[in-house]
């Protein structure tokens, strides 16, 4: 297998953390404790995890409106994230960003982005910094199947090829952009081969399998680190939740969600494979589950108790210096 025992346990913990985080956040949203819009990453955990395990804090990622998972996988502080999403003091973005702008800049997570297609051009820049400054870092943009059709994404791929920067365009194809099927919106029906036609290698992977995603992401990161320019990955997966919390998902087929949640549950797949490969015992995984549950509960409880940002902060940090 592509992961050794330690790595596997780490991967499992990260995925479980994301899953629990998302479900807790969903609950709190239902209780009215979270303002605004909420797009959850539940179901896609193996992708962020498989990629970010190949990255260090010196590598960069940019994310989407569905950014909690990317942020956690990149090492963002879960307590701060919970506070941010609940609009509290001490939040990752001081309460100014919220779910759609979750970030952990100090960890190289340069921010979620509520503009579909907003991230890919930015990652070209982060990768350009890496190349120009010779840091050996790579940049990864997480983009959806929907975002794969945005002009900014195409431009970013072409520019990355022209400049030969270490950028990875990771497309998470969860089948839908809001209520529109990827099979409709992606005219070519194939995100990877369209990316390849821009002049870079493009890989495909089953995004529900952490072993496969880790391996494929490793290939891509190695490619970039060795100076071979950009590369693309299309990871297929499903969304466990609606596009946003509150979405009735009537566009999905009868029983589709239920079926796919069973077939494509990366945590289930990971634990089955991990146990089978003797990378972990059931008990070990249960112990992680229990630890994560406590961890998330603490984060949520602390966040709930935190106070709102002070109104005096309204005009701070618009500019970096006196204005």
């Amino acid at each position, binding site marked *: 297998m592509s992961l050794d025992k330690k790595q596997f346990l780490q991967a499992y913990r990260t995925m479980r953390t994301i899953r629990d985080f998302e479900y807790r956040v969903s609950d709190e949203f239902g209780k009215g404790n979270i303002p605004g819009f909420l797009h959850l990453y539940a179901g896609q955990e193996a992708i962020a995890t498989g990629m970010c395990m190949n990255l260090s804090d010196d590598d960069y990622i940019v994310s989407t409106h569905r950014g909690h998972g990317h942020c956690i996988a990149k090492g963002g502080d879960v307590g701060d994230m919970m506070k941010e999403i609940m609009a509290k003091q001490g939040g990752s973005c001081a309460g100014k960003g919220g779910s759609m702008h979750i970030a952990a800049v100090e960890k190289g997570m340069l921010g979620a982005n509520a503009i579909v297609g907003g991230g890919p051009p930015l990652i070209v820049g982060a990768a350009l910094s890496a190349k120009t400054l010779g840091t050996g870092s790579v940049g990864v943009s997480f983009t959806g199947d929907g975002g794969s059709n945005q002009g900014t994404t195409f431009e970013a791929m072409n520019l990355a090829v022209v400049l030969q920067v270490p950028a990875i365009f990771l497309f998470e194809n969860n089948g839908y952009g809001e209520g529109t099927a990827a099979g409709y919106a992606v005219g070519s029906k194939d995100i990877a081969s369209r990316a390849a036609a821009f002049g870079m290698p493009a890989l495909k992977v089953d995004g529900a399998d952490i072993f496969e995603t880790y391996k494929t992401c490793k290939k891509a990161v190695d490619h970039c680190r060795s100076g071979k320019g950009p590369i693309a990955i299309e990871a297929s997966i499903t969304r466990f939740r609606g596009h946003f919390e509150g979405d009735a998902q*009537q566009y999905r087929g009868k029983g589709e969600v239920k079926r796919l949640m069973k077939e494509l549950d990366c945590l289930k797949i990971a634990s089955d494979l991990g146990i089978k490969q003797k990378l972990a015992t059931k008990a070990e995984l249960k112990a992680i589950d229990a630890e994560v549950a406590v961890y998330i509960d603490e984060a949520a409880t602390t966040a709930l108790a935190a106070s709102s940002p002070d*109104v005096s902060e309204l005009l701070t940090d618009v500019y970096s210096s006196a204005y």
Partner: protein
Amino acid sequence: MPIKTYRQAINEAMAQEMRRDSSVIVIGEDVAGGAGCDGERDAYGGVMGVTKGLFPEFGESRVIDTPITESAIMGAAAGAAQTGLRPIAELMFMDFLGVCFDQIYNQAAKFRYMFGGKAQCPMVVRTMAGAGLRGGAQHSQNLTQMVTMVPGLKVVCPTNAYDAKGLLITAIRDNDCVIFVEDKFLYETSCDVPDEMYAISFGEANFLREGTDVTIVGISNTVNKALAVADRLAAEGISCDVIDPRTTSPLDEESIIESVEVTGRLVIVDEMTPRCGIAADISSIIAEKAFGALRAPITKVTAAHSPIPFAPALEDAWMPQESDIEAAVRAVLGYVR
């Protein structure tokens, strides 16, 4: 008269115009929803349900779901408008202007002039603006000023269901590119809206309340806040003229001037950032054209000069509130040179 919500009124205007004129089409992201899916079509009817029901009635040749591709949507609408269709293109959130603005301000807005009057571009861009829903910095902006400044565009910002229907009908029938800015805070508000079709002319302000002490001009939902303030102040004997321009381009300058000539005092409210906004624009028009009537500083009540914060307490502080309007009214009344 039947009571309808702002959402229903907009929906009805589209449906009635589409029945009347087969060249009217709707195009945008999830304007029906469910394209290519195994489940239901018309699953969204627009992310806020405003276009719901149009797909079942008019079908996929006239209610067109697109990928996430705003430049191509606006461009396709502009190209279609030049060649025989009358597209209503949806820009889901006004914040997204940045990914398609060229097709609006350099293309649709300029065709007629650039081509010496030989082209026309009868399209409507329906979009949604406004803060208060905790949407954060990229889903809460009202950028009405950014389109109002563009010659060739007309800009409409309805503040109630009745106006929304009448103004949208006018917009669809207009032969220029019209930006129709829906305030997302108003979708659930309702009032009497006739079943028949009716058109409200552009450039004709609505006098919501007559008064003699202070003129208050409000844009989008801020005019409703202004009205609430005026109602309260009336109890104290302060008499406010409350004006809703309804369209910022063309702008009914005359009505505002007329009012200021009576009151001598002007407060302008919008929910945009302060620099180069609609409040600034109207202020400058009055400072130039009705200077002689002014008895107090023209006072702007706008949002703050910052991106829109997520936290409710901050966002509320960012937005112009009734208390800000009230304070401004009292200040201009209390002004002594």
